[in-house]
Each structure stands twice: as structure tokens, then as C-alpha cells.
């Protein structure tokens, strides 16, 4: 394998991992607050179509990204209204959000089908991106790639080191206790859910603006569900979600390369490999049952109605 090919594989892996990572890191925060939003796929689709539409109407990728962020937040707000204020079942509401997202994005996207879009400008660091190997691998990506990595560090710091991160975790562990101490449980859960929606929207926008700059119905093709699974297998820890997303992206790309080399293994097996490898690795690194229990938000998916 030549150095160039390795660099190409790593670059492709980064691109494949980024939409998963963005959606997963948002969902991680939502779930840490005790809210189970299964609507990631729907929020990603809405983010993808709104981001694409805004970018193609305004001609600016930045406007597209901002619009996708807001659209994801709006979808999450809808979920929060139903599940947190009206106390609808969170699992059912999340599934409904996905179904709504699939249909609504197709409807919004009608006028944009078949229109191409110039690719998101890359953040080329002058000088650095021309370096052999390190240039393409580290310094020639789209803005959202760096944003996703920064978000992992940011979320880790927020959850582990900041006061409000502690409060958010407390709300997820025991909403009754948090409420008794006087924290606004519902408001915090709203914020966490909307944060999750924003990042799912960004994940969708990465697909429609950077990865394959176009709008196509159902273009997320199940990535929202993979992001949800990553959160669980990463036992709600940001750096493990990062590892999971990159393993998944890496094996996805590697299996395509193996096929191109005429590797004699059924391609269905190779297509399965990313799922298998990711589950295996994440299950191994977090095999300590006690720690899993400690990391799982105890109130995940449970409704909260403050006592009168």
C-alpha cells in the first residue's frame, strides 16, 4: 500500500465518520439528560434538505449550515413538546419523528431534486494542507469535520468538568432528586433535546452539502440509526463515540477498497463488517458491567411530571 493510498483511505474514513459523529454526539447529550429521542434519522433528513435548500437559494454554504442547525432544533423542539410537556411516550414519539422527517423532507425537497450545488469550501490551512501525507489527512477537510472533533472535546469537558454538565447528568440520573434540589428538570431536558436536534441537523447538512452535495430522498440511508446505536455502544462517553464513528467509517471504506482489489470474500459479508467491527470493539472496551450501569442515565426514557 502506498503512502498516498493510506492517506486517501484515512481521508475517506474521516468523511464517512463525520455525519455519524455529529448526530451521535448530539444524541449523547440528549440521552445524558434522560431523554431518549429515536428521531435522529428524521432530524438528519430535515437538516439535510433544509441545509441544501438554504444553501442553493442563498448561494452560501454558511447560510445552509445555519439553516440546517435551526431546522434540526425545530424538529427536536417538536419532540420535546410532545414527549416532555405533553408526556407522550418517548419511544413512540421518536419513531414518529423519524417517519415525519422522511415524509416532510421529501416534500420540502421536491424543488431541489436534481439540482447540483458547489461543494462546501474546504478549510485549507495555507502551507500545511500542501504537506505530503499530513496535509490531506489533517488539514484539508470541510469545516464541519473540525467542528465534529471540537464538539467531542467540548461535550466531554461540559459533562465532566462543568457545573451545568453535572446538573444535566443529575437530571438524567434522577429527575426527582434534581427537581427536589430545585433544578428546572423540564427546561434542562428541553435544552439537551434541542442540542441533540441541532447536531443531528448538522450531520444531515454534512451529507447534503459536503459528502454528496445534492438532495436525494432518504439520502441518510439509516445513518441516524447507526448514530443512535453508537451512543449506546459507546456507553454514553464522547471519546468512545468518536472511536466508534471512526471505526465504523474506517471499516466501511476499507471494505470498499478490499473489493476493488478483488479480495475473495463475499461483498455481503464485507458490507456487514462495519457493524460487526464497531459493535465488537465497543463491546470489548466497555465490557465492565458495573461501569456500563454507572454510565447509563438511570432515568433514560422515563417521563417526568413534577409533583404539584
Amino acid at each position, binding site marked *: 500500500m502506498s503512502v498516498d*493510498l493510506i492517506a*486517501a*483511505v484515512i481521508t*475517506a474514513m474521516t*468523511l*464517512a465518520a463525520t*455525519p455519524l459523529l455529529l448526530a451521535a454526539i448530539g444524541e449523547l447529550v440528549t440521552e445524558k439528560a434522560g431523554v431518549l429521542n429515536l428521531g435522529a434519522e428524521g432530524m438528519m433528513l430535515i437538516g439535510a434538505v433544509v441545509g441544501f435548500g438554504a444553501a442553493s437559494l442563498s448561494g452560501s454554504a454558511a447560510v445552509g449550515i445555519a439553516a440546517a442547525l435551526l431546522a434540526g432544533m425545530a424538529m427536536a423542539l417538536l419532540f420535546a413538546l410532545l414527549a416532555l410537556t405533553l408526556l407522550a411516550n418517548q419511544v413512540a414519539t421518536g419513531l414518529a419523528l423519524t417517519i415525519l422527517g422522511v415524509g416532510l423532507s*421529501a416534500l420540502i*425537497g*421536491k424543488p431541489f*431534486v*436534481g*439540482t*447540483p450545488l458547489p*461543494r462546501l469550501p474546504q478549510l485549507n490551512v495555507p502551507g500545511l494542507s500542501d504537506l505530503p501525507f499530513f496535509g490531506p489527512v489533517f488539514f484539508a477537510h470541510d469545516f464541519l469535520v473540525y467542528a465534529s472533533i471540537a464538539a467531542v472535546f467540548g461535550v466531554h469537558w461540559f459533562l465532566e468538568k462543568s457545573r451545568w454538565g453535572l446538573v444535566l447528568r443529575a437530571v438524567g440520573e434522577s429527575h426527582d432528586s434534581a427537581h427536589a434540589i430545585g433544578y428546572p428538570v423540564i427546561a434542562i431536558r428541553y435544552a439537551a433535546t434541542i442540542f441533540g436536534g441541532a447536531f443531528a441537523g448538522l450531520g444531515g447538512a454534512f*451529507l447534503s452539502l459536503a*459528502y*454528496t*452535495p*445534492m438532495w*436525494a*430522498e*432518504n*439520502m*441518510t*440511508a439509516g*445513518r441516524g440509526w447507526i448514530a443512535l446505536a453508537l451512543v449506546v455502544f459507546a456507553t454514553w462517553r464522547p471519546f468512545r463515540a468518536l472511536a466508534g464513528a471512526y471505526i465504523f467509517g474506517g471499516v*466501511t*471504506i476499507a471494505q*470498499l*477498497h478490499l*473489493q*476493488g*482489489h*478483488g*479480495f*475473495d*470474500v*463475499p*461483498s*455481503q459479508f464485507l*458490507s456487514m463488517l462495519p457493524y460487526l467491527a464497531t459493535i465488537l470493539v465497543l463491546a470489548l472496551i466497555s465490557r465492565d458491567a458495573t461501569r456500563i450501569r454507572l454510565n447509563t442515565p438511570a432515568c433514560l426514557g422515563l417521563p417526568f411530571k413534577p409533583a404539584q
Partner: protein
Amino acid sequence: MLKTLVKLASAAVATALVASTALAQDKLKVGFVYVGPVSDHGWTYEHDLGRKAIEKAFPGRVETSFVENVPEGADAERVIAQLAQTGHGLIFTTSFGFMNPTLKVAERFPRVKFEHATGYKQTPNVATYAARFYEGRHVIGLIAGKMTKTGIVGYVASIPIPEVVSGVNAFTLALRSQRPDAQVKVVWVNSWYDPGKEAAAAKALLDQGADVIVQHTDSPAPVQQAEQRGAYAFGQASDMQRFGPKAHLTSIVDDWSGYYVARTKAALEKTWKSGDVWGGFDSGMVKLSSYNAAIPADVVAMAETARKEIIEKKRHPFTGPMKDQSGKEVLAAGKRLEDKDILTMNYFIEGVQGQIPK
């Protein structure tokens, strides 16, 4: 109260049914069942253009309707039966997986005419039709042989069925007639439609040295990747030129309009008969979109000659000698492959790198 409501509702449904039957006597209702969205810009999109062509060809005499995103399975039967019940006289079911549901419904509605795309079972009121896509693959193979510099062509393949396999082989045979040392790298994405995965597959192939990308999947993502990397690409099912103005050399376009209009005409004139049509360039079912200006004039001339010779039956994409991947001869020099051997093709020929998933 509830009973009254139910009675009222069923009366309303009955009235609606009667109304639509009355209408059907004046006009021929033509129904379409699609497997994907009409906006996929590939397979279903082209079928819907065919539906619009019917409306245009018989103004006032036909009424068309369609149901999109119908999953292949139990739901399909329900949808097809629904169309038959609501007075449709001619129903097109446009995906391979609709075969058994179509046959079942057809048995229950002997007076309704059915047309099933890409299937192989016919009955007196179920006709089948498909297109010889491999003829298009032959012509783009010739062009690719002249345009590739590295001699490596990347092929983004969907699902391992004979239609896709014969496409890879027709392409490779033509490619190597122009460039004997050329190799075709095949990557299966195991999906007809997943833009992200198609893009990743194209990227992997480009990273492995391919400078021409061919696809047998439905989204324009591979063409887009080729454009970004300054490579060439061929589109699939419908014209994908605007997704890669520089990269896109031409697309194999499925054009069902002619067939759909002809069959509707037959149904209107009561001359419709069941049958099996497998049309190619000659019938207009397979077309090539406009050639990119980057293709030299002599190569365009060669491609056009090949297309005409296929129409005149002077040329056949599968003409021997042809060897399989192990080097064993599967077709003797000068011999042509028969239709049944193309329809059941399950091996790759020499020059293809990659395996058919078993």
C-alpha cells in the same frame, strides 16, 4: 350512532366506486406502481416520464395515476389490487419484485391488463417488458477504452443479479477491444440507492487508480465524485450531466415512453395482447444522452457506428472470443451469446477484478 356512521361511510365509498366505474367507461384509466420516489432521478423518474408521455399522447382519452415508494412484498399486492378495483384498465408495475403480486392480482381481475417490468412470467393478461441495457454498456465501454489513461476503470455495482453482471461483462468486453490491457475494478454497494455509500465506493475506486467511473446504481453521487477528482464518469438510467459537467461523458438512459404509448394505444383500440418485449437501441428503450465535448470526434463517430450496427444487428455486444476470469473460453470466436445466456449470466469475464457475491 357508530353503526349509522359506518353505513354512511360505506355508502359514500360505494358511490365513489360507482362514480369511478362510470368514468372508466369514458376514459381508459392507466395506473402505475413505482418502487421508488418519482424524484429519484433514475429508475422511477424515467418510468414517470413514460406516464406523462401517455397523458400527452391521448389527451382526454386516458387518465393516469401512480403510487410511489411501494415496497416489494405484501404491500405491493394491496396497492395493485386497489388500482384494479378503482377501475384502472391497464396497470404497469415497474419493479422486478412486483412479479408475484402482479400475477396474483391479475388472476382476480381477468379483464384488467397488466404490464410488469423486468419480469419473466406472462399470462393472458400479464405482459412483461425490459430493456437491453447491456447494449448501452457496450457503447460506453468502447468510449471508456479510448478515454482511460491509467487503463483502470472503476465500476460501482448494485445488487448481484444477471442484469448487472451482464452489464459489467458487456462493458469490459468492449473496453478491452479498444484497450486490451485495461482492467475493471468492481465494487458492490449492495443497494440500488444509497448516495453516501455510492460516493464512498467511487472514491475508493478513484484512490485505487481508476480514472473512469461507471455505475449501475441510481444516484448521481459517483458522477459527482468523478467531477471533484477530475476523472470521467458515465451516468445511469437518466441524464446525469448536470452533476458533473466535465466528468460526465454520457449516460445510458432508459426511455419507456415509446413502449408505454404503444401499449396504451393497443389497449384503447382493443388490440392489446400479452407478450414479452426486450427492447434495446432499436426500440428506443435504451438511449444515450448527449456526448461530452471532451470526447474526440473520431471516438464519437466510433460510438455512433457501434450503436447503428447494434440496431442493424450487424454487431452484438457479446461476440466471442470471450473468456471467464479463470481464462477458460466461454464463447468461441465469432459466436454470439443467446438471450437466455445473457438473462442468466452469473460469471465475470477476463479483465474484471472483483467477485460476484454468491
